[in-house]
Structures are given as C-alpha cells and as structure tokens.
C-alpha cells in the first residue's frame, strides 16, 4: 500500500503513514495494542494525527488516546535509534491491519 510507504526524513527519523480503518476511531483497545508494540522496540517511536499534528510518544497509552484519532484519519509514525525501520514497519502494519492480531 502506498499508505505504508516509508521515507527517510531530513532528520534521523524513519517515517511512515497509515490510515485508521476502524469506524469508531483509535480507541482504548487499539491505543493499548499500539503502545505495547511500540514498547517492544528500543527505538524512540512517535506518532501524530491529522497529517501535521504534534508528534507524541507512541509508548504512552494516555498520550495516544488523547490524540483522539478518528476513522479515516492518516497517522504519521516515526522512529529513531536501534530497530527504527522495524518499529515503523510494525506500527504501520498494525494500523493497516486494523489492529487485528
């Protein structure tokens, strides 16, 4: 999917994008799943909503919830440090799979 394309930004971050597919948006359950996955990587992992919202810590369920990301919204994912590529690919994959599995 073009949504899942990764690009190397001008900074040291690896970037990716994915669209929220659940009609009810990014709610508690997916937010917890996403942060648990982010925590499994050493890299610093960040996420943002609405294309150009502020970057927030993808390892904080509270912060991810407070993004209030809605259905159809494009989320940005970025990571830096060890396993940064893997972390972005894993998070983008989880969102694209609609948090299934």
């Amino acid at each position, binding site marked *: 999917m073009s949504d899942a394309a990764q690009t190397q930004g001008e900074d040291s971050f690896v970037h990716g994008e994915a669209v929220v597919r659940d009609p009810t948006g990014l709610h*508690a359950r997916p937010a917890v799943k996403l942060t648990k996955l982010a925590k499994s990587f050493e890299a610093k992992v960040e996420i943002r909503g609405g294309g150009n919202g502020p970057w927030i810590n993808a390892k904080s369920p509270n912060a991810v919830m407070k993004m209030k990301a809605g259905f159809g919204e494009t989320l940005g994912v970025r990571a830096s440090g060890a396993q940064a590529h893997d972390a972005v690919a894993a998070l983008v994959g989880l969102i694209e799979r609609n948090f299934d599995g």
Partner: protein
Amino acid sequence: MAEAVSERVFTGLSAAKGLVIGTLVIEAAAHQGGRQAGSSPEERKALEDAIVLAGRELEALAAKAGDLGAEILEFQSALLEDEDFLALSFAKIEAGGPAHEAWATALDGEVAEYRAGDDDYFKARAEDLLDLKDRVLRSLFGTQTEAPAQMEKDTVLLAEDLTPSRFLELQGPSLRGAAILGGSPTGHVAILARAHGVPLVVGLNARLDSALHGAPAVLDAKAGKLIVAPGQDALAAAKDRLDALATDRRAWEDLIARPAVTGGGTAVQVSINLDDPALLDSLPPEHCDGIGLTRTEFLFSGGHLPGEDAQFGVYKRLLDWAAGRPVTIRTLDAGGDKPIPGVTPVGETNPFLGVRGLRLSLRHPEIFAVQLRALARAAALGPLKVMVPMVTVPDEMARVRVLLDRALADLAAAGIAHARPALGMMIEVPAAALNAGSFAADFFSIGSNDLVQYLTASARDNPAVASLADARNPAVLETIRRCVDAARAKGIEISLCGDMASDPDLLPLLLDCGLRSLSVAPAQLGPVKLAIHRQLGTGGRHG
C-alpha cells in the same frame, strides 16, 4: 424500619433496560482515610508501591471479569505502566507535594482533558481515570477495597456512583439491578450493565437515605424509574408485566431464527436497521432477512470524511456478515438533527426543511462520488442496494443516476472490480410519497420518522407536540397505502424502515396497508416476529 417506608418513586435515565423486583441495598461512598506525608523520596516510594498494588488488584479482577470487563480494565492497567502519565505525579512529588495530593491532582487534570470537547467516547473514558484514581488512593491510604455491601438475594443496588471496576466486583447472581445518582447512558458502567443484562438507571433524582436500606423495590429501568416500597398496585402491575415479558420472550425465542409468517400464512420480510457495525458481532444473521437500512453517518462521526478504501472495507464487512442476504446502504443523511461540521450548512432557520440528506450530497458531489465509488466496488461482492434519503422530486433521482453512471464508468476505465447496485429511494417527503409513481427507482423504502413529522407538521424532538406526531394518524396510513400501491404498479419492492416498523403494536396497521417488508431495530427482531406470528387472517389488502 423498611416496613414503615411508604411508596416513593425516583426517576432517572435508562442505561440498561429491564424490569426487576428485589430488595434495595444502599452502598455508601467509600470512606477516605488520612495519611502522614514523608520526605520526597519516601512519598515517591509510597506512590510506587501503591501503583504496584493497584496493578495487582486490577490483574486479579480482570482474570475473572470476562472479555468485555477485562478489556475495560486493560486500559487502566496500561496507564499504570505509562511512564509519561506517571511522570506527571512524580514531578509534583519532586516539587514537595504529598503522594496522595500529587496523584489526585495529576489525575484530575487528565480527567478534565478527557472531558473537554464533545466526543462522548472520550468523556466516558474519564470514568476509567477516576476509577484508577480511587484505586491508587485506596492503596496509598491503606484502605483496601471494601467488601461488597451486604448483598441480598435479588439486590437492587442504590449508590452515589459506580466505577467500572466496582461494578465488576459486585456483579454476580445477587445483583439484579442498580440505580445510581451519577453516571451516563454512554459510560463504561452502562456498557457493562447492558452486556451482563443488569438493568441500570443513571442520573437518579434521589438522595441516599439509609432508612430505605432493605426496603422492597421495583426497578423499571426501561422507564428510568425506581419504586421504593411499592404499594400493592405497583407491585402487582410489575409482577404482571414480568409474567407477560417472560411468556413473550419464550415465544419469540422460538421464532427469531425462522422466517416470519403470519398466522394466516403470509410471509413478511424482517430486516434490521444498522447504526453501528460493532453490533453485528453479537447478532446471528439467521435472525433477519438482511440489512434494510445502514445509517452511514457513523462513518462521518467527528467530522471526518472517510476515504474510498475505508468505506469499501466497512461495506464489505456488512456483506460478509449478511452471507448472501441483501444489504441496503443509505447514502450520507446529514443535516437536520445530524450535522457534520464543515459540511452541513450553518445558520439555517429551519434545518429540517433545509439542505439535508440527498440535497446535501448533490451540493457536495466530491463527497458523494467517493461514497458511490465505494458502494459500486462493494456491489461486486454481494447483493448491495443503495438507498438515497430525502428525495423530493424525480429530477433528483435522475441526477443521482448520472453520478452513479459516472462512478461506474470511472471504475471501469481504471480496471477496478465493481458492479451496478440497485438504486432505490427513501420516501419521507410528502411530495415524493404522493407522486411516487413518477420516480425512476429500483425500490422504495418508507422513512416513517420523517414522513410522520412532515405530514403532521410536528417536530419529532419537541415533547410539546409529541401527541400530534402520531403514526396512527389516518393521513399517515393513507399515505403509506398509496406508496405501496405505487410500488406494486411499478413492480418494485417497498419496505418501511422507520420507528413504526419496530413497534409491535403498529404491526397490524402496517400489514393492513399492504406492507410485506419491514426493517427494525435489532433488539426488536423478536418482538416484531412474534407480533407477525400472532397476526391472524390474511392481514390486509394484498394478503
């Protein structure tokens, strides 16, 4: 003494329907102890220990809470492992605050953020934070979770408020119903109560009076009513209704998985109205003849405009669930009582007579085209029907057909799999109802809510004219009859998908108008099928 209490009636909002006769158990608010604050490092350690203890309690509770309960508690557990979130409290301790004040202030600040804005989901999550706040404070103060209040057999609980975790602690065979002074119908406790079949009234207009403890009580949660110490009449009425409900339920449980047929042998199609696809997880498709109305407004909630792929994914899910049964999807019906920020017009003096439904879609062809393309793609996967709301004149349907043709041509040119869906219209506007024969539509579906409000010129959300907005008005029934005749003359299907179809008492009238297809609220499938079954004779002109 309970015997001395005379009948008292309290009212609130229905959060989980049901009727129960039981004994009132009053739970007083948990007592908060005091504690001596130490040095900053000691306070930090105290909070860390309290968090570990609270985490263990949540884990133990989740293990026996069932899937839904565990899912709700999971968010609280995750917060206890959220370093950024906990850092808010630890920073306040570094600044010299006692642990309990640091935790309480930090949590209150977060609760305020969840409650800000107008998203009910996030407002309801504030409950989880307050629940967690209490649990950690109890650990800090050393007041362990109190033992459940003395539960009676057939307890009707009356409490100031109920947290999700407290509900899960009390939930069991003794807890037959609850009424709380706080709460909301969309909160987690309400969701849990509905899932566990525990009747619940929230926002009860009462004071906790310990003199009422142990009194007999009737909780009529559907009506949002708690009757304490019911008199003989109220008690007898409740008993009669319980008996009738049990008899009906047994009867419709036998019928619900079978096609609906009247006592006179006339088959009636019964489909469902769908507001939220999540509901399909708990509904066997065998219970209905498909989806008669999908309200796609949920896709646009919060003002988001869903993309084509995302919409296609949702439509596919509906077709997968229906397993070959027809799925009718209504195009966006915004405006009137359903505004979408940035799309629906602002400042109309009479939104119900303004730019809503199809009128809005024709003004925003760029939004409409995305939905039509997603629908045409999904139509390649199964029997999908497209239904257009708020049609007034035949030219509007002609314009929709042009837009649909264009979407089909674009998909063909791009080599994307698609099929032409049946294109039908809702009949809600009297001008369309009386001129139905002139419309080029593949099917009709009567939207009785709007049709009744437009025919009687009585707003459906205004209690002062509610008695005039009467579905039994002969003008309403005559209009329905004419629509059925027009559909028969054209040789197309006609159904009715408003609230009228969900009311078993109105069923004989609808059959008498010639209708043989209804789309009802999912919870009404059983009662409506029972009403059809009990309908004797040929049931109307076309029987």
